[in-house]
């Protein structure tokens, strides 16, 4: 069983939901990436989504765009992101790490070189935003053969046929985008998400994480009532953006810890 599958199944058996924070590698500074990953784990993260910066993040809103720009200004590359995973693994062998980014940096490195290096570094999953299932059969096969999960997005507009296709090619978990739009938008409709998730889970046969638009403990708690995991990105990046560098770790830890508490208190109260 992959590290992702085993973490998710042990959470399930203990009746808890996965907290999946997203941060962009290299933001606000490459020296903080690994410490930030450890801080996320200490705050209660179950899986870390580590963003690989790209010059043209078409599916992201302004917050994640800016984090990508900060990281690129500090010369962060796919290779240096993989090196950060490897460094993280020296002291953490339990928390799954998913690399999330766009196709071009991977194609520039070469799919084979990427799959081998990412896997050797201890990466558990890969989510390429602009590789929908129909364009990624070879890629998915190669990543799986290197022992990693391939994670796909499902949108509110995805048809049943597409959801089933994702179920066939994806593994680990499914990332359900909770709203129409880009990351960081603020019009999340919890009841609509709640209505969709059971069918999606059934169609894909995988745990469902929900993301895009989750900003606080209350929305995280509401969504963890229906989903298997909650992804929080833009809100954490805002915290990074608004903190002096020497306070980034403490403030991110406090924010994520608060969300963890809110999610767990739901579980305590049901």
């Amino acid at each position, binding site marked *: 069983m992959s590290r992702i599958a085993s973490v998710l199944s042990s959470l399930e058996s203990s009746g808890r939901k996965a907290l999946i924070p997203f941060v962009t590698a290299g933001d606000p500074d490459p020296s903080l990436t690994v410490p930030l990953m450890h801080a996320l784990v200490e705050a209660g993260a179950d899986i870390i989504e580590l963003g690989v910066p*790209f010059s*043209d993040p*078409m599916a992201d809103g302004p917050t994640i765009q800016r984090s990508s720009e900060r990281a690129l200004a500090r010369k962060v590359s*796919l290779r240096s992101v993989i090196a950060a995973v490897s460094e993280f693994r020296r002291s953490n062998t339990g928390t799954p790490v998913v690399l999330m980014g766009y196709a071009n940096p991977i194609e520039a490195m070469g799919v084979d070189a990427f799959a081998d290096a990412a896997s050797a570094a201890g990466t558990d999953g890969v989510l390429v935003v*602009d590789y929908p299932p129909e364009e990624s059969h070879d890629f998915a096969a190669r990543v799986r053969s290197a022992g990693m999960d391939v994670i796909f997005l499902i949108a509110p507009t995805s048809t049943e046929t597409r959801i089933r296709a994702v179920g066939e090619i994806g593994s680990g978990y499914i990332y359900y985008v909770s709203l*129409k739009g880009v990351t960081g938008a603020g019009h999340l409709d919890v009841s609509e998400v709640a209505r969709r998730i059971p069918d999606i889970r059934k169609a894909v046969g995988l745990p469902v994480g929900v993301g895009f638009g989750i900003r606080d403990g209350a929305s995280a708690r509401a969504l963890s009532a229906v989903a298997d995991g909650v992804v929080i990105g833009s809100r954490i990046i805002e915290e990074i953006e608004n903190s002096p560098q020497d306070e980034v770790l403490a403030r991110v830890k406090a924010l994520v810890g608060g969300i963890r508490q809110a999610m767990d208190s739901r579980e305590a109260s049901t």
Partner: protein
Amino acid sequence: MGKQDLPADVAKSSYNYPDALGHFGPYGGTFVAETLIAALDELRAAYESLKDDPAFRAEYEYELKHYVGRPSPVYHAKRLSEHCGGAQIYLKREDLNHTGAHKINNVIGQAMVAKHMGKPRVIAETGAGQHGVASATIAARLGMECVVYMGSEDVKRQAANVYRMKLLGATVVPVECGSKTLKDALNEAMRDWVTNVANTFYIIGTVAGPHPYPMMVRDFQKIIGEECLWQMPEMIQRQPDAVIACVGGGSNAMGIFYPYIPYPNVRLIGVEAGGHGLATGMHSASLTAGRPGVLHGNRTYLLQDENGQIIETHSVSAGLDYPGVGPEHAWLKDSGRAEYVAINDDEALAAFHRMCRTEGIIPALESSHAVAYAMKLAATMPKDAAILVNLSGRGDKDMHTVAEKSGIKF
């Protein structure tokens, strides 16, 4: 008709791209986030049902004739040809279209698709402002809301076109992210589209983007080459030996190349912006100097660094300043059917001035790249050879740039 034009020859052509998923060989495709897939499915279905519909075709052709002023003439540039001392140069006069460039052919087609889909709001990206002006024009013509995304750097550089769009009733949104130029405007338009897809149609300005855009834009631009197919024999009793067009995203080039693909004796030559020279790295020549990758929803040749980040481009002509290129050109290059070359800023400017002085035609700086290469090539060919150049636009918009290069201030 010459031997090369025998319909039997032409019918033998097996060129049939893209495939059902929008692939031109290994290029093209649909490299977008899942959030955009439904919008693209909806567009593809609408376009498939309209493209051969006689009523839709008739409406499109009516607009091209009465609003755009088609067919645009083919003109024998005698004095320019004499100056070069070789082949005869013919110009396909897209500069005479309403709004002054080929862009309008595509915009009319897409705006009509939008209307049929019941979308009251259109959005567009623009670099130089030509596609933005064309979009604003058609939106006014059809009574639609129009929002144009434009990099904030370009908003500063192209103030006249920004004002033009506003006169036509469009909203111009300056884009502050990334390099603040065309590619970032395209990113931002995609983000708008994914958020507002229920009432919004995205009019892409060139043969780029995810499927079906490269195919659809080509289909709306191929009228250029289709007219040439009968205009050239009318003029010289045969097809030309070479067809030359400038390549930014590649829409005017695809428009004139596509109908000529089945004519094996007609060379197809795309001219990219060599900027300060390929060796300087300051250029926009994706096909000549780039590597394949994925950007803006398709796989194609890109200008990128060793880490796969898209790099900034340079050209004296804003309309060629794009780090990618339509995927069909990537395929035409790899398959050898078309050739691609680069022309530097200086060469394009020289051709611009030469055209003004010898023909009384002020060409767009983009088109001047094609003219410059045609002049070079003509000099190496016999006098009875024929070169057809797509004069994609007129140069009124470039007055400021050219004056500045000559040290003149208005």
